[in-house]
């Protein structure tokens, strides 16, 4: 699309326009409920925001998107008011746009490399993707993709998180018979039991699961692969031609400090699962309990930590974040950190927990932290936190560890021929995502050890392409599956 032929304002004028800020519920209001924080653009705002794109001849944004959405194309359609067309364009590459528009770390991906962002705020690509997807859903536009004629090949997908959903979609579109096996009683993976409702409403995920079923994908719940059925069962007795493992990370890390098994101390997985999978925030109508005290301490400052902090706030606690580095090193998505800061959450930077102290009934009553300082940058340019020798103690009655996850060993334990590294990450060939077991591929958090929705999707898409080749009998590659237990998981090199 040559930008000189485009009507309307000049590129310079477009680049000078201010970004349309996403309208939000006020912090005072939103901490009283679990409804979504942003209210979404209006059509006018969306069209105006889209018009800020200068339609680069060599659009860097596309390379910044792990699934390679044709961003300028959809923005041009949207600018002209063709929302349905924009939706079609996005769907060519991404079948979970409503989720990605909401939870992608755009600030590190597509928007990080947008040319407009060099001088002004970058084009609101994520917000616009969200707008298009919501419009499509609310107006009931046809989302059904074209599905190739049946190939007669059967593929099992393990896990219904974003990686599993994406692989199922991509493989079904190619005409295969796809069954998703999910351990839990509902689908969506961490998008359901990790990411909170005020960031990602359930209806969105359910719509996407419904679409998969309408396409003819079978989703089986309550089925733990490695337990109820093994990988070998799937390949040998159940007649699947290939398996894609998308079972996520799902093994919480703890600190290993005294007192961490006191009552009132949770992993983020437990805390968030109780609430978002089991609905403990609607106790007792939903009978799964949560012990929610008045003073909640959250350890860590990643996305998960922000989610726990903001969830605790909505349950009425006074909330404090403890992180051993400083604000600038916090790994959370910037918007999440910003929203948390707006929501009256306290941050204690450079504070590293060394002990939890319990009361006579075994409930946590205080957290003891060491005060840290940042060292001079080391060779890698990273400033490490080092203890200052000082410490402090705060009264708390609930603690949540948000330190990330290792990979759950259920599947590798049951099938020794899927190799893992020493952190339990499944080892795959970095090009095809084929594991060490013939016919078995893996992608998403299980091969990275915890990353993002869109990276999990990107990997699933790539894997699906090779699974297709595999089942159609044209898979001829020299596989290179690392065997070194020290080898890292799959790394993604984009948007450097």
């Amino acid at each position, binding site marked *: 699309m040559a930008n000189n032929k485009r009507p309307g304002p000049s590129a310079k004028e477009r680049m000078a326009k201010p970004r349309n800020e996403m309208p939000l519920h006020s912090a005072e209001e939103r901490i009283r409920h679990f409804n979504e924080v942003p209210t979404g653009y209006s059509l006018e705002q969306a069209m105006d925001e889209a018009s800020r794109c200068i339609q680069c001849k060599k659009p860097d944004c596309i390379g910044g998107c792990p699934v390679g959405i044709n961003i300028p194309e959809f923005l041009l359609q949207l600018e002209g008011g063709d929302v349905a067309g924009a939706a079609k364009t996005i769907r060519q590459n991404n079948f979970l746009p409503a989720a990605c528009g909401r939870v992608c770390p755009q600030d590190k991906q597509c928007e990080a490399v947008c040319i407009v962002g060099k001088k002004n705020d970058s084009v609101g690509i994520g917000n616009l993707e969200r707008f298009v997807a919501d419009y499509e859903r609310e107006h009931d536009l046809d989302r059904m993709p074209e599905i190739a004629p049946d190939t007669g090949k059967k593929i099992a997908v393990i896990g219904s998180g974003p990686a599993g959903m994406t692989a199922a979609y991509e493989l079904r579109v190619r005409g295969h018979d796809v*069954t998703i*096996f999910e*351990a*839990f*009683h509902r689908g969506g993976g961490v998008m359901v039991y990790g990411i909170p409702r005020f960031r990602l409403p359930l209806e969105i995920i359910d719509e996407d699961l419904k679409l998969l079923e309408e396409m003819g994908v*079978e989703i*089986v*719940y*309550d*089925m*733990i692969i490695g*337990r*109820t*059925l093994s990988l070998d069962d799937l390949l040998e007795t159940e007649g699947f031609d290939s398996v894609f493992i998308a079972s996520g990370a*799902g*093994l*919480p890390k*703890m600190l*290993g400090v005294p007192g*961490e*098994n006191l*009552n*009132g101390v*949770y*992993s983020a*997985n*437990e805390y968030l*699962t*109780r609430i978002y999978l*089991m*609905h403990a925030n609607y*106790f*007792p*109508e*939903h*009978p*799964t*309990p*949560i*012990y929610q005290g008045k003073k909640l301490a959250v350890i860590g400052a990643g996305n998960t930590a922000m989610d726990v902090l903001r969830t605790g706030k909505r349950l009425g606690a006074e909330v404090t974040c403890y992180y051993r580095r400083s604000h600038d090193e916090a790994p959370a998505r910037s918007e999440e950190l910003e929203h948390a800061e707006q929501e009256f959450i306290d941050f204690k930077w450079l504070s590293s927990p060394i002990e939890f102290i319990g009361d006579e*009934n*075994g409930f946590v009553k205080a957290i003891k932290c060491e005060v840290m300082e940042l060292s001079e940058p080391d060779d890698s340019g990273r400033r490490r936190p080092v203890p200052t020798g000082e410490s402090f103690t705060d009264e708390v009655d609930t603690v949540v560890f948000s330190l990330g996850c290792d990979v*759950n*060993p*259920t599947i590798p334990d049951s099938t020794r021929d899927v190799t893992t590294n020493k952190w339990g990450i499944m080892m795959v060939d970095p090009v095809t995502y084929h594991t060490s077991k013939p016919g078995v591929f893996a992608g998403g958090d299980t091969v990275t050890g915890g990353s993002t929705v869109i990276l999990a999707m990107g990997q699933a898409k790539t894997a699906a392409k090779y699974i297709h080749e595999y089942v159609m009998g044209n898979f001829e590659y020299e596989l290179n599956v690392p065997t070194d237990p020290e080898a890292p998981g799959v790394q993604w090199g984009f948007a450097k």
Partner: protein
Amino acid sequence: MGKYNQDFKVLTKRELCANTYHFKIQAPLIAKKILAGQFIMIRPNENSERIPLSICGWNREEGYIELIIMSAGRTSTEATIKEVGDSFKDVVGPLGQRSHIAKYDGACVLMGGGYGTGAIIPTARDLKEAGNRVIGVVGARSENLLLMVDELKDACDEVYLTTNDGSIGIEGFVTHALEEIQKKEKVSSVLAVGPVPMMIAVANMTKEDGIECWVSLNAIMVDGTGMCGACRVTVGGKTKFACFHGPDFNGHEVDFKELMTRQKMFVDQEKIAMEAFTGALEK
């Protein structure tokens, strides 16, 4: 409904004693895989909590599993009021590791209290099949609370009964039976499944006597697959997940005090949940 979507139908239901029922549940895929010592997670109804239950038997050909459920609070009551023909919303498993099975030179003594009496039956069968002399011990407050005795007799070489009130068998606790057994023969391994105080008593006694001791830890669970860490227990000074590494652990290394504390984590909420439920039932 596709090939893999199972209907977890109640095939039979039998009252064992007050508030405690034996169920046969249709679950062909789980029945095919389950091993002694493993457990399942259930949700009786659409919005129920997930709770763990041991398996006391199965039939791989006919595709059912057997459970003993004692109504302790809301969710177990939601389960025990199911009747033949009703279905459980979700049954997931098998979970946890198989019980420790080996060939010993002395006898294996398996002790059950409450629903634990059911849980030791499959392990008794496996130990016997491995060539061991297997002795079962069932303890309860009184004769009418002893359950699964006939089934346990089928699986063991010999069965001792103990009651606190002496209404049948040895008067006292299961540890008294263990003393009796030790007077007669060498005991090499003990498995205790039941209330925590019983497991503590057995662990202490076997430690003194230098006998291997396994206990099945009933920590509070959410997913049952190692994902959440709710079921953390300390064994040998290390944090373990009861659902994944257990439920059976070396009784001499378990921090029982921590287990008991953690079991009480939600007592206030459990009362509220039960009241809300009985309130709704009455209406």
